[in-house]
């Protein structure tokens, strides 16, 4: 079973790694991804990023994504921690860990998890620039393409 957490507080990557590895001697590789807030977006200086999410659905959606990773690869464990709230440049947003007996599934599952999180977990980012203006981040076609590369199915649907 994956460890999933959705929280406003920072996470501790070293502690999460230790938790995943504790008492395990069957793991050969751990892949990891950490997403952080960058200080620029389309050439403008960012003051902060505010992440809104859908409490309840978020945890379910992440657990489903992690379960799909565990179905596709023989994982010894995986961890997904995603933050919400107002985060300033340099702050960590998301942590993904995937452990397996060998490096190939660990690294593939790590890429898969972050690609699907970007397109299937109900989070929305609002950018706040240094001049005080704000704007909701539009979904990126590149993210949809990255997520779709793992599957034939579309990552979303059009309501209209």
């Amino acid at each position, binding site marked *: 079973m994956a460890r999933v957490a959705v929280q406003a507080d920072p996470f501790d990557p070293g502690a999460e790694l230790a938790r995943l590895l504790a008492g395990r001697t069957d793991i050969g590789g751990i892949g990891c991804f950490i997403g952080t807030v960058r200080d620029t977006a389309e050439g403008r200086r960012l003051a902060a990023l505010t992440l809104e999410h*859908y409490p309840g659905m978020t945890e379910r*959606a992440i657990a489903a994504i992690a379960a799909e990773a565990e179905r596709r690869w023989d994982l010894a464990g995986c961890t997904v921690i995603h933050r919400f709230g107002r985060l300033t440049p340099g702050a960590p947003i998301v942590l993904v860990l995937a452990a397996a007996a060998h490096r190939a599934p660990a690294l593939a599952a790590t890429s898969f998890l972050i690609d699907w999180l*970007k397109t299937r977990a109900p*989070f929305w980012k609002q950018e706040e620039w240094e001049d005080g203006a704000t704007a*909701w981040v539009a979904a*990126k076609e590149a993210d949809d393409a990255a997520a779709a590369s793992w599957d034939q199915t579309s990552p979303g*649907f*059009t*309501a*209209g």
Partner: protein
Amino acid sequence: MTETAPLTIRYFAWLRERVGLAEEQLRPPAEITTVATLIPWLAGRDAAHAHAFAARATIRCAVNQEFATPQDRVSPGDEIAFFPPVTGG
């Protein structure tokens, strides 16, 4: 006579801002049975809802916290959420 349970409608990100509400409890008429029929009914409520639902191609939906399609059914007591494409990670 028992009243049917209302729908809980939730809005996120710019849909929430445009509607001016994070959540509302509504009882649509009996002929509203799918996401596809619910949307124009909601859009017809007032100018704020109309504005929120104007860009339908960029609106996503969840029924009871699972991503849904326009064909998915909507039943009394359901939690229906509308939001823009997600941008987490």
